[in-house]
């Protein structure tokens, strides 16, 4: 049995659940309180990766002996380990498109969504919610992760970071349109529904549902794609039970 460890249903946690559901793979979910993340991670120190992953502390997938982190690589792992139904293109060029898009989503879009989502979640939260969670003191976490948590709990994001996040989400919407334009649809990479659709959908969800406190105007093609993903049986069944929430995600690229 596979166990998905999460601290809230972040977009990344949802992407793993959606992939498992699309493949019809049974799994259990174990919830960890984000206020005690560092403590929760102490159960995963047998390998180096979980405590150092750039995406943030969770989700983790435990599958037999393997403890896997970084959601896009978990998605690719699931397609490698359980190939049916295939959720990647069969050809090398299609796989390249999937990976090039994953890089864009992980490096540009995920930090932007997390910044806006976290700001909205914590800015108006009562002070008791924000006081002294253990990860701020946990030397087992990399310093930049502790800083990310401290920043999230300190208050709303700076105007600069807000602008930068909005700019990146604008690029994201353009990219969805252009991918659909290149592939001819109905899915991002063409006629096969793939991990790219899942990875983009979980990031598009808060944008399309206007839950980030910012208005965006997705194009008609992207809006149709979004509805088609949301309408899939596996996607609808997962989303019926879960509400998306935001936690400090990957940092914005430091080179700009």
């Amino acid at each position: 049995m596979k166990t998905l460890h999460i601290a809230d249903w972040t977009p990344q946690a949802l992407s793993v659940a959606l992939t498992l559901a699309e493949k019809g793979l049974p799994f259990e979910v174990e919830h960890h309180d984000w206020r005690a993340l560092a403590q929760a991670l102490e159960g995963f120190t047998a390998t180096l990766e979980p405590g150092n992953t750039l995406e943030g502390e969770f989700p983790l997938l435990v599958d037999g002996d393997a403890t896997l982190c970084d959601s896009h690589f978990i998605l690719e792992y699931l397609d490698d380990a359980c190939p049916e139904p295939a959720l990647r293109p069969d050809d090398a060029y299609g796989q390249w498109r999937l990976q090039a898009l994953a890089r864009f989503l992980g490096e540009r879009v995920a930090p932007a969504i997390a910044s806006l989502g976290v700001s909205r979640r914590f800015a108006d939260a009562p002070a008791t919610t924000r006081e002294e969670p253990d990860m701020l003191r946990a030397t087992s976490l990399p310093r930049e992760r502790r800083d990310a948590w401290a920043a999230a709990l300190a208050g709303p994001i700076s105007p600069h970071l807000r602008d930068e996040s909005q700019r990146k989400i604008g690029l994201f919407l353009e990219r969805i349109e252009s991918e659909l334009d290149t592939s001819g649809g109905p899915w991002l990479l063409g006629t096969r529904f793939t991990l790219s659709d899942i990875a983009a959908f979980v990031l598009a969800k808060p944008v399309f549902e206007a839950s980030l406190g910012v208005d965006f105007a997705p194009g008609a093609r992207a809006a149709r794609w979004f509805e088609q993903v949301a309408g899939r049986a596996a996607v609808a069944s997962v989303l019926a039970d879960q509400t998306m929430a935001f936690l400090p995600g990957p940092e914005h690229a430091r080179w700009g």
Partner: protein
Amino acid sequence: MKMTEKPVLYHWEPNANSGKPMLALAEKGVEFTSVYIDMLEFDQHKPEYLAINPMGTIPAMTHEGHLLNESTAIMEYVDARFEGPSLRPSDPAERWKMRWWMKYCDQYYAPCASMVAWDLFTGPRVRDKDPEELKARIDAIPLEERRIAWRKAIYGLFSEEELAESRRRVMEASALFEANLEGHDWIVGNTFSLADINAFNLVYILPHMAETMKLPSVDPVRTPRTMEWLRRMYQRPSIKTIWALSRGSMGIDIDAEANREFA
């Protein structure tokens, strides 16, 4: 797999991002047409190159009518598309680990080392050009992210705080890299993979830059396993083949590195 046409690779010096697909092609035994793009002359932002790769980034590869960029994704394409020794482990968990480490190098270890190196070397080398010409060249960069990065590097705009943080991260990453090599020869256990090629392009320079970069991250005392791993890498014939395509000098004696002895 059917016979396939020869790919064309647009690259700069055979290190950092350019070195990744170059070494992957050599390890795979794939012949390719090499087109040298001089990054310090901003060849990658000139119209003739932008006609091929509108993003103006290097490396890029054209093959069977497709344009491919993003060096790590190109490496996976090379392994998937061409015949030759497999450069990715077949076990799904090992393949996951290969990808995790490539991202750690691409988005953490390398950008931090690169920021320090650009501030000290690349920026000052480019800064000697005529200021008007420099400005025009920066304005011609198509991606905003790259314009910001070049501006910072050329005019030395990295703050002391940013540079100190990058140094700290290189120290952290090199320690984690060392810890991962405990008990096995390659990044993913005992299988040589794309992760080793990826990391080599970044790590090889660190022992040689320790003093000039004030960055004692990789050396025989602090990271002996990494030094042994580097020696194993230098013993691979692909390094000689690919470094021969350098226009400058890689400044490193491959044979000496391949036969390095440790006390």
